[in-house]
């Protein structure tokens, strides 16, 4: 496995050269970050060139980096992560792309590269509010009809913003602001010391 990782690293670096913004190899997984420019061509060559041959898009997901700044992302908030799989070379690859604008995150659509990006992008649009330019059918996918907001963003409360109940006088279901407080019994804690094995 380490052999193939080395080979994969080499072929990626020699083909993309400067196009790779950051390269990371950790626990047998390779993560590369691309710039938004030419991203479609880069991913197409990952799909079509025989040394990569990533014919399958395993997963596409949005990430909101608001509360977690890493070196790779250059203070940008929204990111799309592609998990690619090559059946012929038996390799995996993780590709990250960051949006330049935090207020209105825009990404190019990958539906023409991998057809199953369609629903994944709809999901990312629904949950994170990422806009995929030229997507054929960018509707909400998982949330309710008429839902407002993007629930997986870090500034969206876990218990949501509205609650529903049946109103006997109006004789229909109505939406109201949530009446309960968020309950969090275990605080989120980052320990620099004492992390496993520390």
């Amino acid at each position, binding site marked *: 496995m380490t052999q193939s990782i080395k080979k994969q690293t080499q072929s990626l670096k020699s083909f993309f050269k400067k196009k790779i913004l950051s390269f990371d190899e*950790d*626990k047998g*997984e390779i*993560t590369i970050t691309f710039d938004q420019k030419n991203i479609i061509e880069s991913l197409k060559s990952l799909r079509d060139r025989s040394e990569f041959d990533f*014919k*399958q*898009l*395993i*997963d596409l*997901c949005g*990430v*909101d980096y608001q*509360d*977690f700044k*890493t070196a790779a992302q250059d203070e940008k908030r929204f990111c799309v*992560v592609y*998990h690619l799989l090559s*059946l012929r070379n*038996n390799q*995996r690859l*993780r590709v990250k792309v960051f949006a330049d604008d935090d207020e209105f995150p825009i990404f190019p659509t990958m539906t023409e590269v*991998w*057809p*199953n990006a*369609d*629903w*994944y992008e709809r999901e990312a649009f629904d949950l994170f509010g990422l806009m995929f330019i030229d997507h054929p059918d960018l509707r*909400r*996918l*998982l*949330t*309710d009809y008429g839902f407002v907001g993007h*629930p*997986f963003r870090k500034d969206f409360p*876990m218990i949501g913003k509205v609650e529903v109940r049946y109103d006997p006088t109006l004789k229909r279901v109505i939406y109201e602001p949530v009446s309960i407080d968020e309950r*969090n019994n*275990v605080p*989120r*804690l*980052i*320990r*620099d010391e*004492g*992390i*496993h*094995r520390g």
Partner: protein
Amino acid sequence: MRVFIVAEIKNYTMNFGPQHPAAHGVLRLVLEMDGEVIQRVDPHIGLLHRATEKLAENRTYLQSVPYMDRLDYVSMMMNEHAYVMTIEKLLQIKVPIRAQYIRVLFDEITRILNHLLWLGAHALDVGAMTVFLYAFREREDLFDCYEAVSGARMHAAYYRPGGVYRDLPSSMPQFQPSKKQSSSEINKLNKNRTGSLLDFIEDFAKRFPTYVDEYETLLTDNRIWKQRTVGIGVVDPDRAVALGMTGPMLRGSGVEWDLRKKQPYETYSELDFKIPIGKEGDCYDRYLVRMEEMRESNKIIKQCIDWLRENPGPVISNDNKVTPPSRSEMKEDMESMIHHFKLFTEGFHIPKGEAYAAVEHPKGEFGTYIISDGANKPYRLKIRAPGFPHLAAINEMTKGHMLSDLVAIIGTQDIVFGEIDR
């Protein structure tokens, strides 16, 4: 001269579900029909969306394990498996070999559980009632295995980061005499429950191939079954890869891809089994693939039983920064007490980083992607559900088919909304 006036027929829209017995849960389809021929299918999903990924961001790593059971609620332990494997990868901890074998054993039990439900439901949708009843008879025995090992018949929470919660029990729960059943009836029921759990599973593994033969006599050469499945929902291999299909959906199209063989995890590399593949890529081939997978799973189960009988040992890592100490240690040793307390209040921390780990789930590749910022909770958890791209491909698979074929295609995709909606 006679003039025929043909009325212009336009497509009409039809609603299917969300509460339809053939929809396998809460699937709403908006169908565009031309007569009885489907032109377009627009699935509306999300009726079972519980935001598992968001919930996991607000809970410690251990607290999220039971949520995983509820994703694909017909193959519970496999979901846990992918999740704990990702955590183990991030922490770089080793799982004891016995725990790995137990995981493989229960993965394969789960695969049979899942395929039995799929078989019963699929056959029921297409019109064969009997298979459903047979399949549920066998599922009952497998649920008893779940119960014996974890105390829960479905939502086990048995796999833990670092191993499994406890070793296989040396006795099986027994039926108790009641007013309804005489003691001789009870004795008959308890006949294969007198030994350990492994004896019970072995007894099941011996009986199971004949059961599969029974299902096959009901379906494989059945004319009606063939009329409803042969040539329906054909996906060619390249297209199946491009559409993100995995598992039996991909293998049914003739692509030889199985993570257990290609990227072996746990002890799969030491076990002897084969990957069945289809040829035509239609519903019938996928049916044959799954039937054969059940037989292969049964073989793996037998090998695991033989190994587990001979090799006792620990079933969970002794790294007490991640796994709880034993009860007796916890009561006597101060340090163990502290470990126990810290683990179940604050939970363990995972160093900064990210990882993706996947298992060969009965439905395809089930993976979890965790980003950790060094806290006791994941920063982001993404669940890669195998059913999601399959359902997304339904428009392409059903185009030009009749409405009744749609039901067969939903059946062959083995859709479960717990995982698709998450």
